[in-house]
């Protein structure tokens, strides 16, 4: 962690209520540029909620109330009339279950850039190829670009989804338990991929797998019951957590 770190995004005093249930409590967390930040914690601790706040995927109207802010480019993404479509172009997301569009491999990648206005076949071809290469899947699919993405294995599908997220050239990639549906070999590939991606992107990953968090991330946040209990460099969190709750969770002495 000798390299100089700068802030990409910052969560400040974030409170989130669903109805009367408070899902996030005064969460403060930095997201450092070109680093992988892992969010860990037991089910229902609010880690996915926090992640989905970062690209505004889950603050559904009515009973959901949010206070505090998430700063991105010095602007609060929860400001009124904030352009979430623009935000999402810069904060990509990879979901728990691989979910390619039921289209060809090529279309999966080309889809979003085309909607965002890139119409020239040549430019699209370039983007598709680059994204697939960046996501370490080009070698496996370059000779069957027109076949359906649904025919790929789970691990390949997930890498395709990562490639798809790259197609909009985001600054941040959010990953919501991206390996929970994959076997260890596919998981290892995605983890390797994350370590490479982080040179050009900022990654935030929610994971249930503590070893995974320990292996891939630079920073780790431990959440419990909607609170951020501890945030620190990954080595410190896993070797010598400062909070008893973190210690208990990490060593499995929980509940």
């Amino acid at each position: 962690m000798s390299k100089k770190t700068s802030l990409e995004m910052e969560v400040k005093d974030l409170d989130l209520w669903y109805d009367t249930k408070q899902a996030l409590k005064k969460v403060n967390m930095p997201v450092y540029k070109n680093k992988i930040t892992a969010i860990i914690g037991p089910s229902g601790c609010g880690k996915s909620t926090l992640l989905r706040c970062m690209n505004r995927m889950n603050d559904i109207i009515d009973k959901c109330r949010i206070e505090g802010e998430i700063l991105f480019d010095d602007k609060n993404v929860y400001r009124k009339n904030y352009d979430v479509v623009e935000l999402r172009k810069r904060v990509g997301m990879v979901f728990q279950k691989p979910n390619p569009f039921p289209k060809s491999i090529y279309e999966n990648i080309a889809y979003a850039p085309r909607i965002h206005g890139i119409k020239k076949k040549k430019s699209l071809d370039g983007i598709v190829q680059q994204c697939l290469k960046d996501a370490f899947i080009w070698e496996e699919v370059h000779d069957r670009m027109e076949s359906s993405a649904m025919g790929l294995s789970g691990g390949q599908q997930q890498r395709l989804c990562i490639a798809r997220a790259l197609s909009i050239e985001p600054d941040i990639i959010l990953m919501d338990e991206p390996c929970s549906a994959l076997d260890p070999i596919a998981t290892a590939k995605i983890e390797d991929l994350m370590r490479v991606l982080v040179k050009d992107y900022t990654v935030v990953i929610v994971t249930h797998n503590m070893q995974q968090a320990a292996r891939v991330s630079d920073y780790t946040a431990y959440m419990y019951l909607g609170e951020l209990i501890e945030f620190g460099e990954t080595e410190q969190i896993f070797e010598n957590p400062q909070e008893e709750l973190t210690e208990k969770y990490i060593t499995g002495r929980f509940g």
Partner: protein
Amino acid sequence: MVEEFHNELEKLKKQVVRMGNLAQDMLKKSVKALKEKDTDLAKEILNCKNEIANMDEKIEQDALKLLTLFQPMAKDMREMATVLKMITYLARIGRYGKDIANITLELAHKPHVKELVSIPYMAKEVDSMINDALTAFENEDVESIDGFTAREKNVDELRYSIFRECLTYMMEDSKTIKRCARYIMVARYLERCGDHAVKMAEKVFYMVTGDHIDLDPPGPTPDCEL
């Protein structure tokens, strides 16, 4: 799963304490045998050699198995790491006990240069350090290792004073050289055991607090022409 790991870890730590007691015993008895020229006791110690080696082997294998199966983190990981380090130090201490027992056998046919006082005293100091390190490990309480830096310095001083004393004897009477050279070796072994006790204390401190500590910081070397 996790429950099982923690049970296994507890068992492992108990084994380490047992091994520690054995190592302590070997060292203590070896000095007693030396002082009293008790060859039977010295032979008994030599027989313990295999036992402590086996314990070292067994604990290491068990620990590696646990590491592989459970990939412990945080305090669990620190305990495992400490166990693995501790057994190495303890095995060494046991071996020094064996070495001193060997010296006892070598010196058995001759009287001591004079009655042994400094060596047993030094051994007592070292033993209490090993004991405190083990207690700290067993109770996960670092209080008992508080004065280790000073105690380590003290043991060093004792070694040099034994060295100087032996030098005097050897200069006075060349017939004592063979014996005194052995005494110097014993003092050297005991001093090494003290070092191991300090190392153990450092590891225990890491295990309990997660922080690294240097209990034997480099200071001015004691004034002595070695």
